[in-house]
């Protein structure tokens, strides 16, 4: 980490674990529930959010002194919307099938609470470099959880990873399926993501009791 001072490194690393946007701040849950049934979609979503939040934070940070505070939400929305449209167009051009599965959720990155949250809480008060690191860090923290949830849901729900069967063929009854194993249909439906995220939060909190709030 020769490039980064210790404080800067913290901006990237903190959101990965102890200040994770999904499991600790509980932001961006909606998309985490909707698109994590497949690992591939989770990865693409994570990359899109990393792009949007990283670039968006820099743009907002550069403009932070000229945005009138009364209309700052509108300005922020325009910035996110522009970036999201770029992502959407790129996906449609180069990964059309995937953009169909993600459907409205790419567009809904605009409403992802993490993005507006970081603009408001960080980019409006910090310089571009720090904002960039903060954006990347938070988006990575979001992406890590997304990929983790996507991994378990696709493995248990469909028996595949990135669409590749890893547990054998459920119709031909090969591999694990020969023993009578069956895919867990519960993992495909969105409520399962809520439970998987809940379990991740549970594990994280029991490993680090400092995160548990006082009642």
């Amino acid at each position, binding site marked *: 980490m020769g490039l980064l001072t210790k404080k800067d490194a913290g901006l990237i690393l903190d959101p990965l674990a102890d200040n994770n946007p999904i499991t600790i701040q509980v932001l961006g849950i909606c998309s985490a529930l909707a698109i994590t049934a497949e690992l591939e979609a989770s990865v693409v979503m994570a990359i899109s959010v990393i792009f949007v939040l990283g670039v968006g934070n820099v743009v907002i940070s550069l403009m932070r002194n000229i945005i009138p505070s009364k209309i700052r939400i509108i300005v922020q929305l325009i910035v996110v919307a522009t970036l999201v449209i770029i992502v959407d167009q790129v996906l449609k051009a180069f990964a059309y099938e995937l953009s169909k599965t993600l459907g409205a959720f790419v567009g809904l990155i605009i409403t992802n609470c993490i993005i507006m949250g970081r603009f408001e809480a960080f980019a409006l008060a910090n310089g571009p470099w720090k904002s960039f690191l903060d954006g990347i860090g938070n988006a990575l923290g979001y992406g890590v959880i997304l990929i983790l949830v996507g991994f378990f849901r696709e493995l248990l729900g469909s028996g595949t990873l990135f669409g590749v069967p890893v547990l054998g063929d459920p119709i031909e009854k090969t591999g694990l399926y020969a023993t*009578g194993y*069956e895919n*867990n*249909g519960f*993992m495909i439906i969105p409520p399962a993501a809520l439970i998987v995220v*809940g379990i991740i939060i549970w594990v994280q909190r029991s490993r680090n009791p400092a995160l548990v709030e006082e009642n």
Partner: protein
Amino acid sequence: MHELKMKYQGKKMAPAFNAFHTFLYSPNETTHAGGTHVKGADDLKRTMNTVIMALVPILLFSMFNAGYQHFSAINGFPENFSVMEHFLTWDNFWIGIVKVLPLVVVSYGIGLIVEFIFAVIKGHEVEEGYLVTGMLVPLIVPVDTPLWMLAVAVVFGVVIGKEVFGGTGMNILNPALTIRAFLFFAYPTWMSGDKVWVHGAVDLAGGPDAISGETVLGFLAQNKEFQYSVSDMFFGFIPGSVGETSAFLCLLGGLFLIFSKIASWRIMVSAVIGSLVMGLVFNQVVELGWIGETSKFYGLMSFDFWKHLIVGGLAFGIVYMATDPVTGAQTNRGKWIYGFLIGFISVMIRVFNPAYPEGVFLAILLMNVFAPTIDHYVIRGNVNRRMKRLKNAVILPKDSDGKAEELKAETV
């Protein structure tokens, strides 16, 4: 044992050991000498055991029924059916031992392991809460449910349905129904359709000896005729989940629970009323000719309203699931509302979702979630009524401040 207990006191495994100890022996602690003590004989373990006693006849019946349905599906239903000759036979019972008993063993084994692990982690006593759940679970699943699926579901149900909320007495949802719901959504092919209700139907499917075990509700949902008589349905000689078929035994169990004051009669009665009302409404819709015979709802809607109680899991759910004292409503008025809505919604789901005619467990889970809200408003209503009464109450002036004379003078 008592000495061993002292030896292990304070150790990590103490809760696990204590559980065995109190299960086998009565505890050796006595209340201390000072003060007055109130002792109740009906502790949690006693309550649980009473419910289990009410479930034993159903378990035995279901073991016979598993065999009866299996052989009837293969050989055809016997003419001149007699209970002794065709139902209470060793062949039938043997199928029950082979198919139903393992479900019970897995349910208890896995569930208690989870309970023990959590007791050791949390460092308090093993709770008896699982005793009833462990008995209910095998009775509400289809007979051919693979054992590993049951095990996965039990782990899920006990951990997510109960332990994360803090264990017995803290859970929002009925753990047995959480397990059932998990199985239904995770492995729908094993939980619905016309193959799973009779032992052997899944294995024989597609072959020359294929047999079908459609439930009564399944027939109705497809607008088909079925050959079961009302007494078959009432006494439970029909296919269905392991222990849900006999409305008669549920009725006996329910009476037993009411007279031993374990379960709430308010919930049971109001749930019966609720399902009858909903059934009547649907019957009326058919009578008025609002839907034709070709409608996909016709079969279930025209089904006599009172028969809803004797098919499917409605009777079992009302008696053993809805009355769970932890997840149900607590106030008396709340129990009426809670029970009524369970019956009402159960029949509604049955009729409007022909793909999945058994709505009882969903209705009860839904009302489990609403039970605290119902209680809240019942209590608020009570408080408001009393506040109003207080406001309107005439506070008579005391004699001493002289106003009493004025008042008397005015009234005279």
